[in-house]
């Protein structure tokens, strides 16, 4: 009888979650072994959205390859582009004008807020509340409009170029960002009312998917997942790039390491991002938005590495250059991949419902993991 429904001889139930499944935010394929409702093992299978982006980048010039990186972690595409622009600037020793640095950091933080908003909605939807998803999109839409106004696109902006930004900011940029900040601050209490303080939500999140500080480090977790376990790992603090060294903000840290701690870290990060924007928005210096660069960029022979803090964690770019117009080898270190590797550890022994909640709290973006 058990044989007929596809169980192993041990009486375990093996279930494929994904790649077409409403909870896997994309084409992640999980093979989970169940004992009743309890998860015994989770095995992620990748490769459904592999587009060989690293190989593609090797045939593109240093100006062209930036746009491809927006297609990896599409929710923080701007920050990915930032990393790529930074590494080219590092290789060519281009001095980026102050104004460009300010604009970049402002847009980075807006992207981070937008990404966390989407995560907030998706997180609530994963645990079964559908309404917050739409409320999150209402605020996110305002950021998208700001992006569209300044960068010309809503998601894959390609606004960064080596040496600065593609355009100057839109004349209305400062005003729209301030409007957004006021609007978002007024709506944050609703986030708490609908989700954070909800006892059902807290019961679903607390003591679920716990990862200790040591394990978070050994799995290579970064971003909010590691910070929820108490690991100090914010790249913006540890090795500040652009104007991050000049702004005051706190690294959001929690110690519990469970889903609710990750939730709180992201909520705090939204507040910290708003603090950064508050400090920068009024002080954008006058000047060029782009440094003068040569028409054809050639990185000197050698290898380069730079990392930035995306909404999901530590995103690194590694380039080996042979001195040609295109990189010889390029490698991206994506935060989602390492965070996904900890999924099995976090999920063992919890229920199927917890698996979904943990996946939501990891904030996985599959194109980022698979590239």
């Amino acid at each position, binding site marked *: 009888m058990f044989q007929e429904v596809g169980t192993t001889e041990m009486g375990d139930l093996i279930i494929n979650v994904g790649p077409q499944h409403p909870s896997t935010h994309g084409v992640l394929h999980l093979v989970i072994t169940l004992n009743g*409702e309890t998860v015994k093992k989770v095995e992620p299978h990748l490769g459904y959205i592999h587009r060989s982006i690293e190989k593609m980048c090797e045939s593109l010039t240093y100006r062209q390859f930036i746009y491809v990186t927006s297609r990896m972690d599409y929710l923080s595409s701007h920050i990915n582009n930032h990393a790529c622009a930074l590494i080219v600037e590092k290789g060519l020793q281009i001095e980026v004008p102050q104004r460009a640095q300010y604009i970049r950091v402002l847009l980075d933080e807006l992207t981070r807020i937008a990404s966390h908003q989407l995560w907030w909605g998706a997180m609530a939807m994963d645990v*079964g509340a559908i309404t917050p998803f739409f409320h999150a999109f209402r605020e996110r839409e305002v950021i998208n409009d700001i992006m569209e106004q300044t960068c010309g696109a809503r998601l894959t902006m390609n606004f960064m170029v080596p040496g600065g930004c593609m355009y100057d900011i839109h004349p209305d940029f400062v005003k729209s960002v301030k409007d957004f900040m006021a609007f978002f601050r007024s709506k944050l209490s609703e986030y708490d009312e609908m989700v954070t303080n909800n006892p059902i939500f807290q019961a679903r999140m607390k003591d679920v998917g716990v990862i200790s500080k040591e394990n978070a480090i050994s799995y290579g977790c970064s971003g909010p997942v590691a910070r929820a376990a108490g690991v100090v790992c914010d790249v913006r603090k540890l090795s500040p790039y652009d104007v991050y060294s000049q702004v005051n903000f706190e690294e959001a840290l929690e110690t519990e390491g469970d889903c609710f701690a990750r939730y709180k870290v992201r909520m705090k990060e939204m507040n910290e991002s708003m603090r950064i924007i508050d400090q920068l928005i009024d002080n954008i210096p006058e000047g060029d938005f782009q440094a003068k660069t040569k028409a054809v960029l050639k990185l000197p022979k050698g290898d380069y590495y730079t990392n930035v803090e995306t909404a999901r964690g530590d995103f690194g770019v590694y380039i080996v250059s042979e001195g040609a117009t295109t990189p010889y080898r390029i490698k991206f270190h994506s935060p989602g991949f390492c965070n996904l590797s900890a999924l099995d550890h976090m999920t063992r022994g919890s229920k199927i419902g917890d698996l979904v909640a943990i996946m939501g709290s990891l904030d996985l973006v599959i194109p980022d993991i698979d590239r």
Partner: protein
Amino acid sequence: MLTTLTELTIVGILILTLFAVLGLVLVFMERKVSAYMQIRLGPNRVGYKGIAQTLADTIKLVVKEGLTPNGADKFLFNLAPFIVMFGAMLLMAPIPFARNSQIWDLNIGVLYITAVSSISVIGILMAGWSSNNKYSLLGAMRSGAQIVSYELSAGLAIISIVVLTGSLKISEIIASQETGWWIFRGHIPVLISFVIFIIAVTAETNRAPFDMAEAESELTAGFHTEYSGMRFALFFLAEYVNIFIVCAIGATLFLGGWMPFHIGNWAGFNHLMDFIPSSIWFFGKTFFLIFVIMWFRWTFPRLRIDQLLNLEWKYLLPIGMFNLLLMTIIAIMGWYF
């Protein structure tokens, strides 16, 4: 003999029509309620303000191919939606839709309702098992555990009204509310059992936040993952009809059914209230309760299966039992209005 048969046929046709209309109205209502809560417009294309949208969807479902998976137990797979449907249909019998319009006023009406409402779990288990799909099986098992547990609380809540009325007959329960609905007359204990009843029936009809059996983010669609076309529509229809029925029962027991809003011996006020037709009272109360249940669905996250059972066995059942004790004392001492 012939007249009885004609009567039965007419009643049958009326019930079927009511089923279809209820399905359309409730699905449309759910869509609009969810849309407004989610700051959306909702269906607004087919017909005036989208009223015909559910009709169009029904036509789509009817003409769709009903697939049966290869590995399924074909007989049970095809039977399951009808069992769920029959369970819903049978429950229609003792519900009084208006003054003097009740199909079957049997003397154990309340018992009949609690007994028959358990039938749908068999249909759900059948659907989940026969689909030969692991998601369906898990969904069905969850649903079984859930419905069996929550029936206790629903039963206890219903019994508290039976204790007050002293009768299992639906018409007598309504007649006893001539001088005011039980929810107002029975102090806090009735209020508590009303809340327990609403929570329990939300769970019994597999609605969010207790939609363990479906849990779209965990089990795709739970027990009806493999169903398509009209058989899926039957499950869908049965869900909404079940909501209507449990809300109608709630309205009948706690809010007086078709009984207009009466206050004690205020003859003038009571007479004024009688001018509103009794069917409007009944449907008004029922739809209010349905709205509350929809409101739950579009606000709350889903519970986990163990939390769901914890809520029942650690909170609702003890509170319900204590409440029943209190209620019995109140009934014996005659401390209600």
